[in-house]
């Protein structure tokens, strides 16, 4: 069965720290790997990764995909309290297969 596993499940760090969120998968066929940030309500799109080894960056966030080892990481540097959220990793073919998410809490 297709599976997306995220770790850790939950993470609490202080403002200014750097965090790395992990996503590994066992999915036979997919078009892209997606990262979402979910605060109170709707998941909002962060990154789409389709090729191995190419880092995507957006401000303090960056992500990379390793199709050989079947994982992706999401890095957040110089974290701020506004980064507190659930971060979802997902694989996209047509429908989306989600991981359980990593709940990140940033302490001031």
């Amino acid at each position, binding site marked *: 069965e297709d599976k997306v596993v995220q770790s850790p499940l939950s993470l609490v760090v202080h403002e200014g720290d750097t965090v790395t969120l992990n996503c590994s998968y066992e999915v036979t066929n997919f*078009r892209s790997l997606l990262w979402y940030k979910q605060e109170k*309500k*709707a998941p909002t*799109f962060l990154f*789409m990764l389709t090729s191995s080894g190419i880092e995507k960056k957006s401000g303090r966030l960056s992500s990379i995909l390793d199709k050989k080892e079947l994982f992706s990481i999401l890095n957040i540097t110089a974290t701020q309290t506004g980064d507190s959220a659930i971060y979802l990793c997902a694989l996209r073919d*047509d429908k*989306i*297969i*989600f991981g*359980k998410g990593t709940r990140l809490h940033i302490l001031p």
Partner: protein
Amino acid sequence: EAGVTQFPSHSVIEKGQTVTLRCDPISGHDNLYWYRRVMGKEIKFLLHFVKESKQDESGMPNNRFLAERTGGTYSTLKVQPAELEDSGVYFCASSQVAGATYNEQFFGPGTRLTVL
């Protein structure tokens, strides 16, 4: 531009009752998806409409769930009769053009369903 909207935000019903959830996709989006997150589990796909047609309903848990999208605009998801294990957050998402190589799915805020 308005995003995906869902109604209601939260519904609390008793086991055996019927509930209907509504999703209004972004105007002009052909694709509409329903997902569900049950407590402690990941968000799971339920079904996919392309306009008014069901493209993929492989994720629907059982025949107590009925989704419709008459006219290809808004969609409803009815649960009848509701069971305790149906409790969770039901998300709707929409994306633009059917058959395109990549369509970002935009998610609604979800409807929290609690079955007592």
